[in-house]
């Protein structure tokens, strides 16, 4: 499947941006201004769409041929490019976008031609799929795991490294007792927040490497 690699889905959506030359701030400009102001990291809207490993929103004006002889080729429209690497199935992902961040989705895609809104999730999904192009080869810089599993694994690594640092060399019984306490504490920890830039611990902080 050219859009999937294991459980990872590489979604590419190109939505044509409305061309209205009668308004002072064009739709593509308004979209750029809006996207620039979106919060990032753990406060970013896609942190709420929990299957998202990484996504990007880009306004593409045109593609320019550089070379000789010069060619005047243009796209038929300006496009909003939405690319997302997420875990799982496309229908579930689009439904989750419509459910979790309807206002943001509306704010963004209302600048695009033919956007039906998210009130009817089916119409929204049909629209998005109509704008979808095949991603073909893609590289997902994550393992074939959910976001939560990935964050948990990073958290476990940080916590376990700290545990070893603090307890190496202890007598076996003492070590076992310490590990048992550590394990209970680890199991009770909430998973780190999606999009967080740092995984922190009381004595150790480690920057996440994405």
């Amino acid at each position, binding site marked *: 499947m050219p859009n999937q690699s294991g459980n990872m889905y590489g979604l590419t959506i190109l939505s044509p941006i409305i061309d209205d030359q009668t308004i002072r701030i064009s739709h593509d400009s308004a979209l750029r201004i809006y996207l620039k102001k979106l919060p990032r990291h753990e406060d970013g809207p896609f942190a709420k769409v929990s299957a998202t490993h990484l996504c990007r929103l880009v306004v593409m004006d045109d593609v320019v041929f550089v070379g000789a002889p010069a060619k005047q080729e243009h796209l038929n429209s300006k496009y909003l490019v939405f690319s997302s690497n997420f875990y799982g199935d496309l229908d579930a992902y689009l439904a989750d976008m419509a459910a979790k961040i309807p206002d943001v989705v509306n704010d963004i895609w209302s600048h695009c031609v033919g956007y039906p809104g998210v009130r009817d999730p089916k119409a929204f999904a049909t629209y998005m799929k109509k704008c979808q192009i095949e991603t073909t080869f893609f590289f997902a810089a994550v393992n074939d795991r959910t976001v939560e599993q990935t964050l948990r694994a990073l958290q476990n690594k*940080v916590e376990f490294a700290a545990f070893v640092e603090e307890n190496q060399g202890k007598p076996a019984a003492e070590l076992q007792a310490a590990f048992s306490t550590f394990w209970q504490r680890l199991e009770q920890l909430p998973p780190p927040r999606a999009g967080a830039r740092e995984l922190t611990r009381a004595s150790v902080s480690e*920057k996440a490497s994405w």
Partner: protein
Amino acid sequence: MVKLNPFDIQGFVARGYNLPKANFLLAEILDADAGRHLVQRVAGQVTTAERWEQGKKPLSTLNIAFTWQGFVKLGLPDATLISFPVEFCQGMRLRNRILGDVGKNDPKYWDPVWQDDKVHVWLAINAINPDELAKRTAEVCRLMEETGGARLLATQSASSVYIDGKPTPKEHFGFTDGFGNPDFEGVERDTIPGQGKLTPDGKWAPLATGEFILGYPDESQELPACPVPYLLGINGTYMAYRKIHQNVATFRKYLEEKGKEYAGGKEKLAAKLAGRWRDGTPVELSPDQPDPALVKDQQRNTNFTYGNDAGGVRCPVGGHIRRMNPRDAFGFNGALVNRRRIMRRGLPYGEYTPEDQPARDEDDHGIVFMALGASLFRQFEFVQQQWVEYGNDAHLGNDKDPLVGRHDEGSNKHIVQGTADPANAPFICRNLPQFVEMRGGGYFFLPSLTALRLIGDGSVDPR
């Protein structure tokens, strides 16, 4: 096969001189005309890559390099100046965030000479003994005065560590240093196994010349980016110069304390930090004890790979020499490292404190480290940013190089991988202090002899 003209390449580029004494003169060019006159005069005395016949090794050598600001001061045409790579134009100080020169390594703590853009020219004198060094240094200083071309800002002296009156390859932490440099095509010497690139059949071959000298194809079969005119760049190369202070007392104290906790003891722990035992034995080849015969054997002392030690149970994955040159550790027969190699030159500075005497961090001692290559960005800066100051390529998260990394809370551990053997138990070096601190540095270009004459004549013509 690339044929190099040894008379056109500065000797410092082609080889380490293996001379125990050095002065690095850092000078400011005051006037373009007088500066060019100085370059002209120096060009006539520069030590080239010419081969020395048996017994004809010079008593001292002279080499010259310029910062981008130096080229500005010498009046190089604007069209030439803007053709240099951006990192060279900016200089090391402005690249500090990329290099991890922040915190204790922040340029604001560097020696005063590096505080502004006044270091324009680097004149390196290497010599066989203090007398020859003093003599040649005086000659070069006289040349600066006579021509009025440059004003001496600072002299960085450097010297091999002398033990029992003899120069040694030791550095202040007690490691034998300076094993191997990348072999590349066109250098007249025998290929030493372990020093070039790995071939698919597991043998060693010299790297492409263009990785280290401008004007020749590199490992991507391209010519490296060259300033215009081409003649200014060909046979020259770039250099990152770094004065690195060593906290000798801190290092010894850490080894002493952690050596008690680590099953292998203090000396083995030192080996697990560096990737070599302090006598220079590669821990990859001899994981249990130093092996003096191996150290002396040029066919063996750099001849190893990490492919069969993916877990790092001999040389830790994060050990210093494994980070600096991962060889085949990232797979693909080592192809991923061939464009990240650096040629090293360097000498310690300051008084060496013997192991049995109390050392002090604050004494002025460390190493003058120089990395040469065709691209500062692709080679030196990449190695510094990704392999010294970060651990992702080696799957080590944010861990840094245990010896030369900038340690702060959150990335101050080094994992010593181990086995079920109690004498080789795994160990985490925690709370690593910062063993080294930056004291200054810059980016330089070492032109060819032809280019020096062009600069001296004022005939650099980019059209």
